[in-house]
């Protein structure tokens, strides 16, 4: 079995090389049958990698402990779900997942474009196949998943495996890596089309239109991946945070930032034919950052609490990136003429300018995060001394950036294209500004003095007001015209232009998430050594440690603290934070208990029993205001993304009105 898996990977490697060579040669020598055979090869690669992945999963599910990978990641007592999730629980399996997803996407792209974009497809396939070759090299030669355990010369199975890292035995973590990988891998498709359009000098923006759905879906998966990571950190890691600016977290955020910038700036290209070079650069950087993110997490170049493996992967990744960046840069420079902008910026107060600043700020954030993440590497190279920066650096730069973006979220969509007058701005923003000022005044009246929090809540109110006004204005027009009630009218409105109103919903989700993040300004925490039966206070809560119980099951042994919650004498129920020690790995984990409410979460962690007094438990208690809104905002964001994907009822052609205008003006002056 495992031999078959290993051979499947090797064959996939050879076939990818063929797909790459055949597509390129077929295009350059004008041999259509070669191109078609290249496309067939893409399907072949998918079949082979599916076989390999299937064998790995089968071995995991059947606990085939002759395999080193299975023995290190799985054990008999683990629930079936985690046995499956062990596929991506380690280095070799993760890379196989990457490779398999890539082959799947490639097959889908080839299939859906079997009659479209014939001139671009050979180049699209070569980009996909080239990347596939790279990952197959990793699968086949650098991190092979099908190694067998051996003593002396015979293959030998161990009685039981080590089990999946207990921290990963949590449902969010079981789906976090695939979601993030879908987001990472997916960006190769828009990149491949962008590249192909660059090489073949496509007229118009075919690549943007074709890949718009891909980009959005991929962006959605990346958002899911990033958010699941946050939810997991919050519920499992036990320090109560959702974001620690760890290199691995940053790695997942970087491509998300550039992708967000790209989603905005393509609108400029579709509508006005501007920022063509910029969009090329953005989509390329997004894809490269995806590869770079995999490299960061997989190579162990920056030390991280995630304790990823040290390995020789790094050189391979750098090699691939060097080639890919080199070739892309070469073609962008070579095609500069073809990427000329069709219009110019006319005013600082315009939609164009708001897009421009949105991009500038997003990119600044991306750069700051990248810089901070690589700081140890950079300082070691330049000064010979490893220096690292922590969360204060990231927060200091990114909080103002976040607030500025929030402001633009409100301003951008309402400002006119080309140029806006102060009068129209006043009309559009009078009420939102009033709402924002009122919010700040009320909060300040209630004794909130945290500056950033005040600004943030004010801006959130501002943006919510602008979005609400947009929906209201549009819906009222429809309801008056069609005699509909406002709710139906709002649906109708959204359906007519899903892209615009879905976008507003995404913005709304972001704003709600910001409300949740801002809550962090008011976090409370305490660590207490409590005798069983005693109480201690945090915020308005009074907590009583009632008793500590223990027991075990085949997978782990546990110890639970039963803690009663009181507020002002009223009993609100109890929470049971837990400590586990996993049998096969001997690794302890804490299972926090969280009382989730819309206004605040009460979060308890059972650190351990006191070492000096057997009757005392060490309890860490936290109060996190508003944190639930982060997850709620995320659902809104996902909903908005889905709305964007629904085709609009009315086809809005993104005719380049402004360009026609400029042209008309020129002909007028020519007369």
């Amino acid at each position: 079995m495992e031999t078959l898996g290993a051979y499947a990977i090797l064959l996939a490697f050879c076939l990818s090389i063929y797909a790459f060579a055949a597509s390129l040669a077929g295009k350059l020598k004008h041999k259509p049958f070669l191109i078609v055979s290249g496309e067939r090869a893409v399907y072949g690669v998918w079949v082979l990698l599916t076989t390999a992945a299937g064998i790995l999963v089968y071995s995991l599910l059947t606990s085939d402990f002759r395999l080193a990978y299975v023995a290190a990641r799985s054990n008999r007592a683990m629930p079936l779900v985690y046995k499956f999730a062990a596929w991506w629980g380690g280095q070799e399996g993760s890379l196989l997942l990457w490779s398999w997803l890539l082959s799947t996407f490639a097959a889908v792209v080839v299939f859906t474009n079997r009659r479209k974009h014939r001139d671009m497809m050979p180049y699209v396939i070569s980009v996909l196949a080239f990347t596939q070759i790279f990952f197959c090299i990793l699968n086949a030669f650098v991190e092979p998943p099908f190694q067998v355990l051996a003593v002396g010369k015979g293959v030998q199975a161990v009685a039981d495996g080590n089990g999946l890292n207990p921290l990963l035995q949590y449902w969010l973590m079981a789906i976090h890596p695939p979601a993030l990988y879908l987001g990472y891998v997916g960006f190769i498709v828009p990149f491949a089309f962008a590249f192909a359009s660059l090489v073949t000098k496509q007229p118009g923006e075919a690549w943007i239109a074709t890949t718009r759905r891909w980009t959005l879906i991929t962006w959605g998966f990346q958002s899911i991946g990033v958010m699941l990571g946050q939810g997991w950190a919050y519920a499992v890691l036990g320090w109560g945070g959702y974001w620690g600016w760890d290199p691995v977290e940053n790695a997942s955020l970087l491509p998300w930032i550039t992708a967000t910038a790209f989603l905005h700036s393509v609108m400029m290209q579709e509508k006005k034919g501007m920022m063509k070079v910029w969009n090329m650069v953005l989509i390329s950087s997004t894809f490269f950052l995806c590869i770079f993110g995999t490299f960061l997490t997989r190579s162990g170049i920056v030390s991280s609490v995630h304790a990823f493996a040290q390995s020789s992967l790094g050189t391979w990744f750098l090699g691939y990136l060097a080639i890919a960046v080199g070739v892309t840069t070469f073609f962008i420079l070579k095609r500069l003429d073809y990427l000329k902008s069709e219009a110019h910026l006319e005013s600082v107060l315009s939609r164009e300018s708001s897009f421009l600043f949105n991009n500038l700020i997003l990119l600044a954030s991306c750069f700051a995060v990248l810089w901070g993440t690589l700081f140890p590497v950079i300082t070691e190279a330049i000064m010979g001394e490893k220096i690292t920066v922590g969360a204060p650096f990231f927060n200091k730069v990114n909080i103002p950036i976040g607030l500025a973006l929030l402001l633009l979220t409100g301003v951008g969509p309402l400002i006119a294209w080309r140029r806006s007058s102060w009068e129209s701005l006043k009309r559009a923003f009078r009420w939102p500004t009033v709402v924002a000022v009122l919010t700040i005044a009320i909060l300040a009246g209630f004794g909130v003095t945290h500056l950033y929090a005040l600004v943030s809540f004010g801006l959130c109110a501002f943006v919510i007001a602008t979005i609400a006004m947009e929906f209201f204005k549009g819906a009222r027009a429809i309801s008056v015209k069609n005699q509909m009630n406002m709710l139906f009218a709002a649906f109708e409105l959204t359906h007519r232009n899903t892209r615009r109103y879905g976008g507003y919903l995404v913005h709304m989700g972001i704003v709600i998430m910001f409300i949740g993040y801002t809550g962090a300004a008011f976090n409370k925490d305490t660590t207490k050594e409590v005798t069983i039966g005693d109480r201690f206070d945090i915020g308005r809560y009074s907590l009583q440690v009632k008793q500590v119980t223990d027991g075990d099951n085949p997978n782990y042994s546990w110890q639970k603290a039963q803690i009663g919650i009181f507020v002002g004498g009223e009993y609100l129920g109890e929470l049971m934070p837990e400590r586990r020690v996993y049998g096969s790995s001997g690794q302890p984990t804490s299972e926090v208990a969280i009382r989730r409410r819309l206004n605040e979460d009460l979060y308890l962690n059972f650190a351990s029993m006191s070492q000096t007094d057997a009757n005392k438990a060490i309890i860490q208690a936290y109060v996190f205001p508003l944190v639930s809104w982060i997850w709620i905002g995320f659902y809104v964001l996902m909903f908005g993304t889905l709305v964007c994907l629904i085709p609009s009822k009315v086809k809005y052609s993104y005719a380049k009105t402004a360009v026609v205008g400029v042209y008309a003006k020129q002909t007028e002056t020519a007369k």
Partner: protein
Amino acid sequence: MKTYLRFGVLVVAIVGTLAWLAASGINESKTYYKTISEVKEMQSAVMGKRIRVTGDVLPGSIKREGEHVHFKIHEKERNLQLDVVYIGKDPLPDTFRDNAQAMADGKMLQDGSFHASAIAAKCPSKYEAAPGKQPAAQPLNAAKPAATS
């Protein structure tokens, strides 16, 4: 041209502000990586700077005292030890235990002990290399131990 000038001014202002914030953020939170021997050798030089020391947790040295945790990390090659007091608020990572490779963030005190405000830990490597309880089994076609993730 006037429009572009305005844009230029705005862009420079934004980038400048962010660069200034970044620079001050770096100064506030920069942390030097040091080995135990480096810390021991240049006590005075590292005093007051934020540093990050890495070493293996000495088995049996982890002691909780109220909210603080005392432990020792050591550098095997040169047989050096460092006393660490963890004074941070966050719970210690689950991977932090005897023989684990620990990374302590904090400052040196005059008495030669190290006050850590944050601890990160990696599992001891023997856990990675020995699946089950039969340490004799090794990967057949490569000598490298399977890694944790």
